[in-house]
């Protein structure tokens, strides 16, 4: 199939020296000498490997190269400045004491709420009931609206003058809240928007996970007459471990670099109070037009979330194993 033919093209000799992978066989210097298993695995990853290199790794390396140079967007000098941009970011109190805490808080709130809601909804959808298709469609609705449009909608809905939330609260006699001009209310709206946009994502993936679980453990649990909650914690959760860990970590990484919602809803305001990491990097790169510093900030962020995510992944795996 397509894959076969692509991978045949994508197996030049230079892939072979990278063949320390022949751990089990131990004899390798050329493609033909690789053991059959390694050759097969190389073939399997060749198509995606080539795509990744051409359209992600190459551009990222170009960007990373810029972060060590004097590279403004409007007049790139491209002179080498070493770690200057990195030092600037790592000593910027705004980055360390405002942007990072905001980002981590947003990540924590959004991922934990999204996961719980997603798990609950996935369980709901894993049953048969009347109107199942309708409910599932409603849950998928947020995926069907472009995130930028959805965020603008949120911004208007929560406007203190013409927003429907203000109108309802006014009608109920609570008076309107200046949602978007204060730090925590606007932060809450960002979290709400993010949860709204991403819960369907959790739901659909966890549902797929639930559906591919084997039946036997449930039958055993039924014989033991375990309570539903016990079945959930002792049978479902441990079996869902791999997919849940992946979902949590991937979502955390993505949430760490949330941009659209924050940019549209508050723009990082009022007075930088809701600024998150990607807004910081974007502002440096595309508002101040200092592309080098923007990419340096982005890479600093990538390192932080990379390390955090890895730790999270390992902990989740261990934690879940223990709980089993």
């Amino acid at each position, binding site marked *: 199939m397509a894959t076969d033919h692509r991978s045949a093209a994508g197996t030049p000799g230079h892939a072979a020296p990278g063949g320390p992978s022949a751990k089990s066989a131990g004899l390798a210097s050329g493609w033909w000498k690789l053991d059959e298993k390694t050759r*097969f695995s190389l073939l399997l990853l060749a198509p995606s490997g080539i795509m990744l290199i051409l*359209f992600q790794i190459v551009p990222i390396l170009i*960007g990373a190269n810029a972060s060590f140079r004097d590279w403004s967007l409007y007049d790139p000098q491209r002179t080498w400045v070493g770690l200057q941009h990195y030092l600037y970011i790592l000593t910027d109190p705004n980055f360390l004491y405002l942007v990072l805490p905001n980002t981590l808080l947003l990540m924590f709130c959004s991922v934990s709420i999204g996961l719980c809601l997603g798990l609950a909804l996935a369980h709901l959808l*894993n049953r048969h009931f009347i109107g199942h298709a309708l409910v599932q469609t409603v*849950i998928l609705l947020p*995926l069907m609206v472009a995130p930028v449009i959805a965020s603008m909608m949120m911004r208007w809905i929560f406007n203190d003058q013409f927003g429907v939330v203000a109108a309802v609260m006014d009608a109920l006699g609570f008076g309107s809240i200046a949602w978007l001009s204060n730090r925590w209310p606007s932060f809450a709206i960002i979290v709400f928007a993010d949860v709204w946009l991403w819960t369907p994502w959790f739901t659909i993936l966890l549902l*797929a996970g639930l559906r591919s679980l084997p039946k036997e453990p449930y039958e055993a649990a039924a014989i033991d007459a375990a309570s539903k909650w016990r079945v959930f914690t002792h049978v479902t959760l441990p079996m869902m471990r791999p997919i849940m860990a992946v979902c949590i970590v991937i979502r955390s990484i993505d949430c760490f670099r949330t941009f659209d919602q924050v940019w549209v809803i508050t723009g990082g305001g009022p007075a930088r109070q809701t600024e998150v990491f990607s807004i910081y990097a974007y502002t440096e790169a595309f508002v101040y037009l200092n592309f080098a510093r923007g990419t340096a900030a982005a890479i600093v962020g990538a390192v932080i979330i990379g390390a955090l995510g890895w730790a999270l992944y390992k902990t989740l795996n261990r934690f879940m194993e223990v709980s089993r």
Partner: protein
Amino acid sequence: MSAATDTGYTPPRKGSFLDALAPGGKRAFLFLCVLGVLLLFAFPVFWLVLTSLRPAWGVYYVHRGLEFTLSNYAEVLEQGVVVNAFINSFVIATLSTFFSLAVTVTSGYMLSRFTGKLANAWFGTIYIFRTIPYITWVLPLYFVTQWWGIFDTYLGLLLPHIAVHICFFSWLMKGFFDGIDPSMESAALIDGCTRWGAFVRVALPSALPGIAALSILCWLWTWNEFLFALILTSHNTPMITVVMAQFVSELGTEWNLMSATAVMAMVPALIVAIFGQKYVVRGLKV
């Protein structure tokens, strides 16, 4: 289906606050919870639809007045580019879904079934490159597509879209294959099946629910994708999200037209999601 077993037995009741409610009350309570959540999910979309039906003077104060009109839709459709944009977005989303899944299903399978340095190196690579924000590379990507002469063509949009999904999908595919017992494939191998045969005939069908779920996600994502579409296209390949973005100018937002376009863009997404759901359910019955 596990759902059948899940609901098939009645567990002994332990103390829970739900039990304090009347027998019918528990059901009603749960029903209300679900209803509340669903309303929360549906409301912004409902409001968007309502907004798009309001005359231009009423798109902000939607709750004031009951005048509705289709003129926003008419005005948007008058712009010839919209139809083009719909076709383009549809083609790109479909192609990107197919190819993204095709290339990642194999690499995900490899990650799940093989251990050793190669697998570790590949996993490390996709992990690291997943963490790097778009800010670092959209602009270089713009240059890269220009160097290769594919800027503002289908290919120039399609290939980056496939690339951007690789890290994430490979990883998720690994998760799906991890949940599938490898002993069946071993049995197939012993029966004289090739490795490729074992993958296609044994592992792939069991992973179908996951792949189907991913395909829906991937299609909807590409359909709604903003950033790549904005940067990597120009007048030759208008995309629906770019057309939407153009309603925001330095002088303000034409929210009436923008919301109408957004609602129209939801229709294909809705069809794909509904069709996809059926497919997911059918995939389960295998």
